[in-house]
């Protein structure tokens, strides 16, 4: 019995921006094509299917099309989806976009209340807890179905007692990476005993939280600082319920390259342009289509404007996303030599 586990698809991410409109859709379609090759009976999506609840028609069409293709290759597949925080409208009287995709054949969605699906003549029980149900008081009581051979729990949330390396990384949560996790007192109790697999969503990096409890992470590098995840492979998980074995299946997310600071404190625009050129030339595989971060040290507003007109505007056209960081003052002593035009300190890998 194999279960594929995805989360944090953020379909619709980047709408209205220059370079990344189709990224989330592309990796989702790739992931489902890979899942079709594996042929699981159950696919679970642990929330944040869409980037925001006021989603437009194209992301819904992407989801519909991909599910249809999956069904063509795996006709008896069931896709179980819980609504994440991004799928849930602020107005509690609205169910959000998952109510629409939940009407598709083979798709079972939990938008507001918890649901239990009983599949394979009662052998497989899937408990779905969407964001709204996880936040409400009193909290739902979560217990496995004793009559079922296999029990799967699908949840969207962050661990209240996260340890080192178990911190969130999702759009808009940059500061929370340094903030303590929520206290257990106000948290939803999730007893782990009796579940064959607990599929979690909300964090954008893959992590095993407990035995048989996993975050699979997002499929794409997204959010205000995608370079934070430059060195992390993106993909989905497959869990084999009989053996307990869990495997990671990578997908080809955008590669992210973060250059070492280009130091212009002892020169001007020309120096910065030359050092930037050297740094860009040293990026393995080039910069085209990648997410590129360029810290520039010691250039004032007017010199930076000149650099933008002369160099950065051309670079911007070649990459999917360009981020410039204006760093003040001279480089820290001892690091200056290494900083001058050195190529990527962190480069994201593509599988």
């Amino acid at each position, binding site marked *: 019995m194999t279960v594929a586990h995805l989360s944090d698809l953020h379909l619709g991410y*980047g*709408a*209205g*921006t220059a370079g990344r409109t189709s990224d989330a859709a592309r990796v989702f379609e790739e992931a489902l094509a890979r899942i079709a090759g594996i042929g699981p009976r159950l696919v679970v999506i642990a929330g944040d299917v869409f980037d*925001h609840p*006021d989603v437009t*028609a194209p992301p*819904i069409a992407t989801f*519909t099309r991909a599910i*249809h293709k999956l069904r063509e290759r795996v006709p008896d597949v069931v896709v179980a989806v819980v609504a994440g*925080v*991004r799928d849930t*409208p*602020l*107005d509690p009287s609205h169910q959000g976009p998952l109510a629409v995709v939940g*009407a598709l*054949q083979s798709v079972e969605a939990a938008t507001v209340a918890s649901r239990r699906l009983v599949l394979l003549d009662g052998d497989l029980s899937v408990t779905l807890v969407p*964001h709204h149900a*996880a936040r409400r008081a009193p909290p739902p009581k979560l217990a496995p179905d004793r009559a079922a051979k296999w029990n799967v729990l699908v949840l*969207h*949330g*962050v*661990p*209240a*007692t996260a340890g080192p390396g178990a911190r969130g990384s*999702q*759009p*808009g*949560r*940059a*500061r929370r990476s340094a903030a303590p*996790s*929520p*206290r257990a007192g106000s*948290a*939803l109790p*999730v*007893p*782990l*005993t009796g579940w064959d697999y*607990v599929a*979690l969503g909300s964090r954008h990096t893959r992590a095993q*939280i407990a035995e048989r409890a996993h975050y699979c992470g997002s499929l794409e590098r997204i959010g*205000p*600082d995608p370079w934070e995840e430059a060195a992390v492979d993106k993909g989905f998980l497959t869990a084999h319920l009989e053996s307990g074995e869990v495997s990671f299946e990578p997908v080809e997310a955008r590669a992210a390259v973060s250059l070492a600071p280009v130091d212009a404190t002892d020169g001007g625009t020309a120096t910065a342009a030359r050092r930037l050129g050297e740094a860009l030339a040293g990026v393995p595989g080039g910069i085209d289509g990648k997410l590129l971060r*360029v810290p520039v040290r010691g250039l*004032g*507003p007017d010199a930076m*404007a000149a*650099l*933008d007109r002369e160099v950065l*505007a051309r670079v*911007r056209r070649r990459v999917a*996303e*360009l*981020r*410039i*960081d*204006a760093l*003040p003052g001279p480089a820290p002593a001892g690091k200056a030599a290494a900083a001058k035009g050195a190529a990527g300190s962190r480069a994201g890998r593509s599988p």
Partner: protein
Amino acid sequence: MKLELLCTATRTAALELSDARGLVAFVSDPDALWREYMAAIRAALASRGRLRGRGSVVSVGAEGRGGRGRRGAPAVATVGSADFESLLEKMLAAHALRREEFAAVWLGTGRAETWLSAAVALLNGPETTRRARGDLGAVGGGAGGRPDHAPARDESAAAWVRRLIREATSDVQRLARAQVGTAELEARAKELREAAAVKRGDAEAAAMAWVRERQDAETRLLLYRDRERELRERLKRIRDAGRDAGCVNCGRPLEDRLDAVREARREEWEDVVQDGKWWRRRRDQLELKPDELKEIESRALSLGAEIEDLSEELERRKVQALELAAATDRLTQLRELEARIAEGTGRTRQTEDANRDEAVRLVEAARERVRAKVHAKLIALTGGRFAGAFPELYADWLAGNRGSGEDSAVLETAARITLAEIAVDAGVALGSVVLPAGLERLNGEDLPRTLADLARLARRIPLVLVKATPRVAAGAPESFDLLYSLEDTGKGQRVRRRRPGPAALWLQG
């Protein structure tokens, strides 16, 4: 000064902020109530201790830099009361800030020059600021104002003050003229808001109907395709097996009923194909947004744009009304100064010139530092997209040209955050800052970065209160610590608050 309660002069729906911490948003669209909050607190601040009736409440002392370690209960006062004036005076004196400069830091009011003047005073520190302001004159551009407000070398102090009086008089006249016709504009804005609310409701209903219909067509089409495939396979099986083909119901060979069954299946298959074609055409028809929906959305958008323009104009006029009060005060002070100069109480010309030169140098250096900080912040919020345009954008903004586009919105937000950061670095116990507008005008790339930056600011200032539209709040709910919104109860409206973001999970065992 941490906001504890934000209320309007007339309505009962108040924002209870006493336990609000972090990045907090008031979510609404349209934002009539928010504008009333802002107008009420600005008016209370401008009343200089003469407020009558209820007002917003602040506390001082429990929060702010190093405040957590302080002992004793915080001082609580109503904005505009005599108690508030006493607290404010202490804060202004401690940092050599003017009243309008503090309002700029705290509430984001006033002109760009006032923001800059506040930032320069905070960067230079109270002693330097007081000395520079004394050298450049007790009023006027002062330590943070334009250096070109300082007198030229060959200009006497009396002539300089006369020039400033001429400029201030012109400002007062210009601002008074700008207030003409405000009541008519307010009535028009109200009318448009009502019309837009109706149109938005229509658009939402029409969009839902379209999505439902399209989904229905897609589902039906898929069903017909499945059925067609099934029938086609059945026909093929009958054809391959001939008279031995089994009946679907009883399993016995069809034998001499073969032709009749085959014909019946073929007819059924053709019917399904015909119906399927119809649903395919229906689905294709529904692929594009219906004209009627487009028209409703377009009308709602144009109404929205018109309301936005009008709201901005009204907001500008409210700000100008406050500026008018400040300009009138300034004119009065300048006339007093002119009288003092006429009495011959000034210092010697030579000393004055030297001190003025030094003051101008200090002010210019600090202005350049502020520009560099705003530049770095704008680069951070936009990923460098406006790096090339910054010099012109910044000059335009300083000249008072506040556009309605995303470029001016993000520049103003960058300047606002920078000003708050400078204030915290200077040790101002702000307790809270308010970003009254602008987030809804940021584009999809800049908004998440800006919210992340505001969240970082909220780790240094106990309360960062922003106005957000539902689109902004729903697009990144996890960025906020608390959301306030208006809710219809049937008997009226009440303010509802909720904690957004993902649920916390307590994994046991």
